[in-house]
């Protein structure tokens, strides 16, 4: 909590300070999007490759799996061989998911 408030406080304070001592000048061109000096052409919020979306979906799958494995990792010694076996089933299903994505070509950047 204290850390979060400090973080917000730091940014707010620094912005206020910068606003106080920073110079101000107004110019019609200044508010334009930066495009190496030439005027912007077309829509700024351009289309992007579907590949990024695909990797985000894959990440979601594996990250949730990672979160599920954490409680088991903590209690691993107590659960012993039986726990290992039952997590292995979960694990194999997951690896199958990765193999499927791989074979389908989802990991290629086209």
């Amino acid at each position, binding site marked *: 909590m204290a*850390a979060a408030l400090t973080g917000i406080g730091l940014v707010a304070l620094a*912005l206020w300070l910068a606003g106080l*001592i*920073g110079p101000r000048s107004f110019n019609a061109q200044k508010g334009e999007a930066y495009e190496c000096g030439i005027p912007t052409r077309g829509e700024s919020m351009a289309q992007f490759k579907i590949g990024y979306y695909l990797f985000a979906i894959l990440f979601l799958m594996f990250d949730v799996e990672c979160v599920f494995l954490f409680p088991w*990792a903590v209690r691993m*010694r107590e659960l012993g061989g039986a726990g290992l076996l039952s*997590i292995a089933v979960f694990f194999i299903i997951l690896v199958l998911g*990765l193999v499927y994505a*791989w074979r389908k070509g989802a990991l290629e950047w086209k």
Partner: protein
Amino acid sequence: MFDFSQFTTWLHQTLLGFMPEWLAVTAECVLIGFALLLGYSVLALFYILYERKICAYFQCRLGPVRVGPWGLLQSVADMFKILIKELISLKHVDQFLFALAPYLVILASMLSFAVLPWGNGMQIIDFNIGIFFLIAVSSIGVLGILLAGWSSANKFTLIGALRSGAQMVSYELSIGLSVLTMVCFAGTMEVGGIVEAQSDLWFIVKGHIPAIIAFIIYLIAGTAETNRGPFDLPEAESELTAGYHTEYSGIHFGFYYLAEYLNLFIVSGVAALLFFGGWMPLHIPGWDAFNGAMDWIPGIVWFLVKAIAISFIIIWFKWTFPRLRIDQILKLEWKYLLPINLVNLVLMALIVVYGIHL
């Protein structure tokens, strides 16, 4: 070893002596806040100078030498310079998100500071899911970067943010899995517990081959996570000007700069915690005199030295390897690091369950 929690309990008792509890807790929070702010800014200034000096020596230059002795005050001067720059208000941006993004980036690194083990008992909060909390809050940073790129409504920033998002999100998986491997070994997610478990030997020695593999993967993924080194294509200056923070000016840009260096510290701090024992001094079983001598060095020195040494390796990467392409980065993560990591996790699980370790 000196236990810093003695000091904090003493402070708490003293404050309780002349004020009600809620006020005492508030006062302590304010104190922690100031200490955090001080540590944060000193570390950031130090790291900026550290990287500039190292990169200068790698390129047979001297680096900053003019401001202060050996250029020590260079980053302080830079900070003031960046503070007096104008904050340009743009017409086309999404004002709210544009202003929100730097807060998120700073917040992520500040929150991670809360669980780092600075010394014996010298931790802001030590709770049972410490390392998990760290992984969770460090992913807020991705959000800040994506928002920055999107809300700027500029082609450069959009591409930079998407690349950064894809890269950070992918490598977070590797970080998560190598942390998971070490959590398996430690049997606890509490940061204090992880450090205590390494009081006889550090995990990188204790954990055999899986720990070493996990360390190497963590180092690679950590480099990618901080958008540095060979993985700095989100801000590849030759193609995207400055990537996701192209449209930010003045101190707004300064926050991204700050967060980048602090994230470098956090990544190496976590590596020090998981593999090199956090604040725990170097102990070798059987060498009692040596262990006793090592205990004289305070924990915070151990932690800082370890973290700074690991960040030296990460900075070294940056000045050694050429930049990768986006497809190479994703291929490295999904086709090499992830399968290796999964196999490594199974190996570690077998080692732990059947007790084949030191």
